[in-house]
């Protein structure tokens, strides 16, 4: 192609929107590339030690954890989604959204709560001991090791699979399921032969989200003392004061993640069903008698274990320690948590909207762009933290002459000690949440209104504000809420990138729990959970208004 032609073609594409997207993508990619480059660095003696004694074990634990959690969450998520979508039974309408509530409890808080509750001084063993004079072997029901972690992850992450699969079944599978029923197949066969294979993309999509969460986890695994690659990153960094080896570990973790990413592609590629999106909703079948009771019990047990029991336990502990722990600093904590989350969410949404708008033209450039900006979700917090830290410190070094001329002293650290760093970290990690919601919004609206507007003489920017924005408002609100809740719950990034003396509810909770003061941690835990639930309720109310 000649230069003139390229120039002309670029002119069609390059707008302010395009440039912002590109800058955003670079900011997001840079820290990730920094990490990746460390794989090629000369190993030091610590690394040799890690490789000799630990690496195999770290890999093994990580993989066992991922495989088991993946299987169990898929099972729980899919069976519940099927029950709720296809059947009617007592309290089903409540369970439909109630089964999402486990997501409001951050996994690390769930781990503290369950471990203490089931421990020797916890309510279960104490009751057995004091009221029934029965001494249970505490090793039987303890939440510890890989088994404990899988238990926690499964109970509190299954809603990802449940949510996506249920939405799929409710809206898109009607004709297939109905024709299977009409062909006289028994419910089990319908489920096994039709529902399961059809919803495979949804199941895989949800499970991959769960796997990313597990790979990136720091709170649960470090608390339960499981050595995974993610916890090892912390240990080499803080225990051995060796950032380079920590980065090398991070790079290896990324290798696993890239592997999973391609595996998911592979699993999805050949099974791409084009399902009509104007399908009728599935009419649920009424379950009577024992079947209804059984469905009710199944949902009920999951709901109790995944939400109600730990929630009530936290309330009891909060009551117990309220007089000791509660003071005005909680308002500061609450304020700081909400403040940084709202600010980050807004930035994420602005960038998400810009990038998603650019990606509406389905070119290979836009495909790569969208993959780049959403990459962060699949990368564990600690890794992002290291990358961001490295970038910011070199940025400060680079800016040092400017700081000096501004009279800020010799080589101070301005950016890397500011809130900007944490916000950038959040943006990288959670861009995908905002972006996906926005993309769904744009997809629903299509490009015709935008094209109509441009034909009527409005530029891209005016068109966006006058036409697109009002039409995707609903999706933006849901993107906002989802991202906001995720940020409020976030632990490792907050722990590593916060400016000094800046605490969020999550870091405060972690600090108490880390000092083995589980009861004292309950108030900040409850506040996080309440923020999440409240956000979802607000979302429901707003969602109804938008529909009207």
């Amino acid at each position, binding site marked *: 192609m000649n230069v003139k032609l390229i120039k002309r073609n670029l002119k069609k594409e390059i707008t302010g929107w395009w440039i912002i997207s590109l800058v955003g993508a670079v900011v997001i990619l840079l820290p990730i590339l920094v990490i990746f480059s460390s794989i090629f660095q000369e190993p030091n003696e610590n690394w040799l030690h890690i490789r000799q004694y630990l690496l195999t074990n770290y890999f093994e634990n990580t993989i066992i954890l991922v495989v088991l959690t993946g299987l169990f969450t898929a099972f729980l998520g899919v069976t519940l989604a099927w029950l709720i979508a296809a059947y009617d039974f007592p309290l089903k309408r409540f369970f439909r959204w109630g089964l999402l509530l486990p997501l409001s409890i951050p996994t690390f808080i769930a781990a503290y709560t369950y471990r203490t509750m089931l421990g020797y*001084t916890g309510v279960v063993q104490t009751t057995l001991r004091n009221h029934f004079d029965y001494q249970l072997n505490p090793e039987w029901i303890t939440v510890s090791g890989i088994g404990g972690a899988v238990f926690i992850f499964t109970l509190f992450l299954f809603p990802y699979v449940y949510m996506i699969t249920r939405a799929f079944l409710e809206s898109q599978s009607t004709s297939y399921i109905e024709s299977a029923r009409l062909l006289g197949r028994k419910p089990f066969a319908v489920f096994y032969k039709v529902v399961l294979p059809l919803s495979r993309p949804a199941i895989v999509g949800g499970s991959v989200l769960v796997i990313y969460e597990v790979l990136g986890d720091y709170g649960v695994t470090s608390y339960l003392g499981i050595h995974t690659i993610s916890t090892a990153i912390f240990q080499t960094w803080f225990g051995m004061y060796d950032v380079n080896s920590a980065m090398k570990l991070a790079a290896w973790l990324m290798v696993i993640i890239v592997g999973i990413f391609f595996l998911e592609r592979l699993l999805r590629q050949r099974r791409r069903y084009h399902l009509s999106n104007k399908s009728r909703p599935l009419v649920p079948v009424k379950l009577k008698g024992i079947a209804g009771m059984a469905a009710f019990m199944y949902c009920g047990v999951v709901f109790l274990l995944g939400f109600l029991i730990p929630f009530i336990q936290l309330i009891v502990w909060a009551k117990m320690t309220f007089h000791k722990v509660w003071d005005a600093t909680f308002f500061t904590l609450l304020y700081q948590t909400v403040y940084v989350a709202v600010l980050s969410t807004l930035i994420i949404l602005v960038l998400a909207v810009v990038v998603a708008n650019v990606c509406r033209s389905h070119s290979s450039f836009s495909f790569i762009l969208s993959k780049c900006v959403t990459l962060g979700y699949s990368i564990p917090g600690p890794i992002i933290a290291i990358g961001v830290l490295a970038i910011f410190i070199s940025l400060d070094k680079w800016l040092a002459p400017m700081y000096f001329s501004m009279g800020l002293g*010799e080589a101070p650290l301005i950016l890397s000690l500011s809130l900007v760093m944490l916000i950038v970290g959040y943006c990288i990690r959670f861009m995908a949440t905002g972006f996906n919601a926005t993309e769904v919004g744009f997809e629903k609206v299509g490009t015709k209104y935008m094209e109509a507007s441009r034909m009527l003489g409005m530029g891209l920017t005016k068109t966006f504000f006058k036409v697109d924005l009002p039409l995707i408002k609903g999706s933006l609100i849901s993107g906002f809420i989802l991202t906001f809740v995720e940020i409020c719950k976030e632990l490792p990034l907050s722990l590593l990138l916060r400016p000094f*003396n800046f605490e969020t509810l999550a870091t405060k909770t972690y600090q108490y729990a880390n000092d083995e003061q589980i009861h004292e941690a309950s108030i900040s835990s409850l506040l996080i959970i309440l923020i999440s639930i409240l956000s979802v309720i607000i979302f429901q109310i707003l969602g109804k208004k938008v529909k009207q």
Partner: protein
Amino acid sequence: MNLSNLFKPLLAGAMLTIGLAGCGTNQPDTEGDKAASKPKTTENQEVNIYTARHYEVDDEIYKKFTEETGIKVNVVKGEAEELIERLKREGKSTQADLFVTVDGGVLANAKQNDILQPVTSDIIEKNVPENLRDVDNNWIGLATRARIIAYSKDRVTPEQLSTYEDLTSEKWNGKLLVRSSTSLYNQSLLSSFIEINGEEKAEQWAKGIVNNFARQPDGGDRDQAKAIAAGTGDVAIMNTYYVGLLANSEDPEEVKVAESIGVFFPNQETNGTHVNISGIGLTKHSKNQENAIKLIEYITDVEAQETLSANNYEFPVNPKASKPALLESWGDFKMQELNFDTLGEHNKKAIEIFNKTGWK
């Protein structure tokens, strides 16, 4: 090209960035940041602390100090490693005057990183015995916790216990409880053995302990005490601070656990019980040295030491300070004598030994 098209979103982006940078420097008013970003002209009236100790009682003591002296105390909290890293990077431009943290290994590490300077004060030297200060007075001890052997009052008699080394013997096979090697407390313990007994013996000891595990390391120090009460094991290596926490818990069940275990100070006949020390150091580039030293003097004085001990179940460093009843009931004990610098030096070796011997 339509310039306005290009320009408008860019402008919006630029404004966003500026807004952000603004947030970065004027973030929600936290005391620490004011201290870090705005050098004050009235220097005599404040002192800035970087601390890795997050206890309410510390804040209480700082508050009392301000009340009595009029010197304002600004606190920046963080993890010890982060704070050391920050002090190193800030160099001359640091606003910090004092560095506070738990664990001798970390204190030694701070000293090695050349971020502290010697303190000279007769009062401090009178308050704190020599063995609880850095050899060069780069840091001063604040409080100590002993890493003791907790035992089941039902199944073990104190006469059966003697030393840390004895825990590797046959009789404790399958009965010993201890937390994971990722804990700093265990790392410092092993570091001290490397210093006192040599690397080879230290490795043998770690191996022996692993052999006697009642179960794989699980949970924190409190969990080891609970496991004794539950009968999983008979003896545990743990920290006195956590015994204090248990005994004073809001949960009556935890208090019961504390009552069911005994506290034994090992190595009394030989080289003494290992202690974890919390310390405070004057930073190399402190701008308020006088105030900083005043604060160290204050915090090591009898009154502050007694507050600290009473609220946080730590042993005071000032021998004149009285201890709360629980600590008093354990009596006096002989402390391991060693140069704390060596803890920092051996920390990495300790981690390597743990990994080699399979102490999870």
